[in-house]
Structure formats: structure tokens, C-alpha cells
């Protein structure tokens, strides 16, 4: 699917990150990250394994606390929120995990119902069923409603993981390695789905990946993370036309070998 023209509202920042630092013991993972994400924008964070890409989105979702710096999400400073306020904010953030993180002990339907039933207790059974069906339809897996996660393929699990986040109608989507471990065709389907979700629900997204095909297909802006800092930022073409030697091997590996 080709990227459609879309409207990015440059006056409305949904995520603002300033001077973000995070260490684990003596391992300094993030060393001063600055990033702005606007309404309707898909930002791809590109980098090798272990460079702190997943740490970055876990800080945004409040799963990890930063050592220094600020992360503002939808106008709230994540690190200073109370647990209750953080829970409210999380309802507006969708997080698609690298391994989908579907609850093994629940069927697909129960997986999708779980966040809805726990956070929207006033809903009737008919409304819950309708929301589940819509979310499954959005990812093209309506037929899998009564299946168990163990019965699904890797690509299907990713889709169900995305559907589970969509059911809460988030304003922001965070994708952690959405195409990791998938064959090229399924990867392409997931890339299309990411774009489709953005257009249909007008979300802003951060896509963590080391897959350049995914980066090119989904990103409006690319941020290349190296040694804990963003070394390049811009459109895909701008970043790879910069002639930065550090990115050359990355590009060659993805598109030549």
C-alpha cells in the first residue's frame, strides 16, 4: 500500500521529550534525547539492537522512570504523575509489544475485552461485543475471535495485539519492533496496517524498528538512535542522503544483503 497524503498538525505536539537520560547500572542507554511528535505524525526510531529504542517507549508509557529529563505526553509530564493519573493517561496510549504480549490464559475475545471491561464498566454486553468486533475487523481478523493466542501465527498475534490497543481508541500508538520475526509479506501487511490505523483513527505513532522497509513504509520522520543519542533526524530520504558513514552499513544490510 502506498503512503497516502495526510495532515500533520504542526501546531499540536502530542509528545515532547527533552534531555532524556536513562542508565541501568553502569550501562548508559539514553544520553540526552530530544524529540517532538505532532498530531497525526508517524515517527520511526531506528537503531541497532540494544541501543535503547524500547527503553525510550517504555519511558513514554511510564513503565520505566527516566534518570533525567522530561517526557510530556498529551500535555502531562509522565514522570511526575500519580499512579491514578498515569493510568488515565495510559488509556490514551496504545502499546503494541514486540512479542504481542497476548494473555495466554484468555481467548482472543477475552484479550480484547480485558482493557475495555476494566476501564469502561458502564458498557453493556452489546456495546462490548460491538467494540470487539470492530477492533478485530480493523485488523482483518474477525474470524479469530474465539481462538487462543497459541493457535495464532506470529503475524496474527501482532494484529490481535494492535486490535487490543485500538479498542481503547488511543490518541498515540507505540509500536515495539512491529515486523520483528515476520516474513517479508506479513511484514508488509503489518506496515500497511500501521498506516491504516493512523489514517482511520488519526493517531500519532512511534515505531521502533531496525527494519528499513518498515521505516520507509510507515515513517513521516526518522530518528536514528546511536550510542544513546539521535544522530540523524528527518525524512527517510534526507537521513540516508546525508552520507553518514554510520548509517551506510545499516542501509546496505537491509537492502543489499
Amino acid at each position: 500500500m502506498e503512503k497516502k497524503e495526510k495532515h500533520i498538525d504542526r501546531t499540536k505536539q502530542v509528545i515532547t521529550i527533552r534531555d532524556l537520560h536513562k542508565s541501568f547500572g553502569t550501562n548508559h542507554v539514553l544520553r540526552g534525547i530530544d524529540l517532538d511528535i505532532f498530531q497525526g505524525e508517524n515517527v520511526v526510531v531506528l537503531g541497532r539492537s540494544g541501543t535503547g529504542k524500547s527503553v525510550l517507549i517504555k519511558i513514554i508509557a511510564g513503565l520505566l522512570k527516566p534518570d533525567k529529563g522530561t517526557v510530556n505526553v498529551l500535555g502531562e509530564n509522565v514522570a511526575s504523575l500519580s499512579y491514578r493519573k498515569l493510568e488515565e493517561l495510559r488509556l490514551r496510549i496504545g502499546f503494541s509489544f514486540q512479542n504481542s504480549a497476548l494473555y495466554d490464559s484468555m481467548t482472543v475475545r477475552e484479550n480484547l475485552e480485558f482493557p475495555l471491561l476494566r476501564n469502561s464498566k458502564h458498557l453493556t454486553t452489546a456495546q462490548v461485543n460491538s467494540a470487539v468486533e470492530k477492533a478485530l475487523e480493523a485488523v482483518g481478523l474477525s474470524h479469530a475471535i474465539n481462538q487462543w493466542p497459541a493457535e495464532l501465527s506470529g503475524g496474527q498475534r501482532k494484529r490481535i495485539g494492535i486490535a487490543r490497543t485500538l479498542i481503547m481508541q488511543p490518541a498515540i500508538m507505540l509500536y515495539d519492533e512491529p515486523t520483528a520475526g515476520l516474513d517479508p509479506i506479513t511484514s508488509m501487511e503489518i506496515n500497511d496496517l500501521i498506516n491504516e490505523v493512523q489514517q482511520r483513527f488519526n493517531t500519532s505513532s512511534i515505531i521502533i524498528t531496525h527494519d528499513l522497509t518498515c521505516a520507509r513504509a510507515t515513517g513521516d520522520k526518522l530518528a536514528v538512535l546511536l550510542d544513546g543519542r539521535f544522530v540523524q533526524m528527518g525524512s527517510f530520504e534526507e537521513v540516508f542522503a546525508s552520507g553518514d558513514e554510520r548509517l551506510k552499513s545499516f542501509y546496505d544490510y537491509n537492502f543489499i544483503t
Partner: protein
Amino acid sequence: MDDASMKLKQRQPRRYVLTKKLDAFFTDVYSFGQFIARFFRTVFLPPYEFKEIIKQSYAIGVKSLPLITLTGFITGIVFTKQSRPSLSEFGATSWLPSLVAIAIIRALAPLVTGLITAGKVGSNIGAELGSMKVTEQIDAMEVSATNPFRFLVVTRILSTTFMVPLLMLYMALLALLGAFVNVHANEQTSFVSFIENGFQTISFLDIFSSIFKSVIFGFTIGIVGCYQGYNTTQGTQGVGRAANSSVVMSMFLIFIEEIIIVQITNWFRP
């Protein structure tokens, strides 16, 4: 901090307060203490997860019944069979019902139920939460605005704390039934006479201390299993380790608690 000073810091050998192993041990004890404190901070605050508590109680209690039935019945038979020769030497086989009842109610039922539940339920909790942790299901729950500690940990600990005493009472009944079968087969004692003889020497303190012990054992099994599972690291290997440590640590603590509670109970005995 610039890169050079950071590299220099990384090269310096790590210093320990005592030794590497002792530091790790005390750190673990401290974090276990924090985990227990977090449980007590969370358990009294709403929302209460009644549905999940019932679901877990069913899984812990009802699904353990076949194993408890079998071991309880066999324990009663074997203990009676083993005790008979010693008593018959003194011509005191008529004391068998009261001896067996005291042994079962004061010690065997709580201890055997605790150990069996530690093996079956403790390992299950450790492995389940461990696997949820390494596959990011706990993180997924957290980002769905559900407190995973309240939903997964508090419910399991409450369920083991409620169900182990019930399982203990059930096991005591089954063990007494096993003992009766053996006594009846050898001495043709009637059921009424067996119960009357058996319960003659049992006091309220015996029953109360056994229930109290089981509550403590249940809490221990739940908290240890949840702690090990919730803090699992290093992938699937970590899951295996969490299941294993849940059983070993629970059993070890159950024996320690048994000694302490027996000692305390004896102070209250007339």
C-alpha cells in the same frame, strides 16, 4: 559525565559491602520485605478484585482436591499402620484413635497440606507469573491501565491464604477416615467410638493453632510464588528458576514457621 570518565568508572572493580553472595542475599531479603509491604499497602485499598479471587480460589482449592484426597487418606492409613506395633507392645492399641487424631490435627494435616500446596500451587504461581513477566504480559496489563500487582499478586495471595486452611481441614477429615479404615479393619472399632476416642484429647487450641498455621502457610506459598514469578528475569531459564525457587523457598519457610508456631502454641497449653 564525558565518555572518558564513564569508561574509567566502568573499568573500576565493583565493591561489595560484605561479599558478592552475601550482598545479593541481603538485597533479596530487603526486596522480599518490600514486596510484602507492598501487598499490605495494596490489599485494603479498592478496587477489590472479587471475581479474580474466586477464579484463583477455584484453581488453587478445587483443582487440588484430588491430590489432597489421595495423600490425606494414605497419610491416615500409613500413620496408623506404623503406630500400631509400638502401641501393641504395651497393650495400648485402644489409644490409637487419640494418638492418630492428635498427630493428624496438630501436625500432619497442616504440614502435609502446606508442603503439597507449596509443590503444586507454589510452582504453578511462580511459573505462570514468571512466564507472564518474560513475555511482557505484565507490562501489557500495566499499559492497559490495570494494576498488575493488584490483579495478579494480591488475588493469588488472598486465594492461597483462604484456601490452604480449607484444604487442611479437608485433609484432616480424609486422614482420620484413612485411620478409621485401618483401625476398623484390625480392631473392629465402630466409627462413633473411633471419633469419640479420637476427639477426647483434642482441644480448641489444637484446632485453632492448626488453622492459624495453615493461614500462615497459605500466605507464605502465595507471597513466595508471586515474588519469584513477578521478579523473573533471563527468559525461559528464569521461569524454570522461579518455579523451582517458589517450591524450595516456600517449603523451607513452612518448616521454620512450623517450629515457631509449635513453640508459641506450647506456651499456651495448660
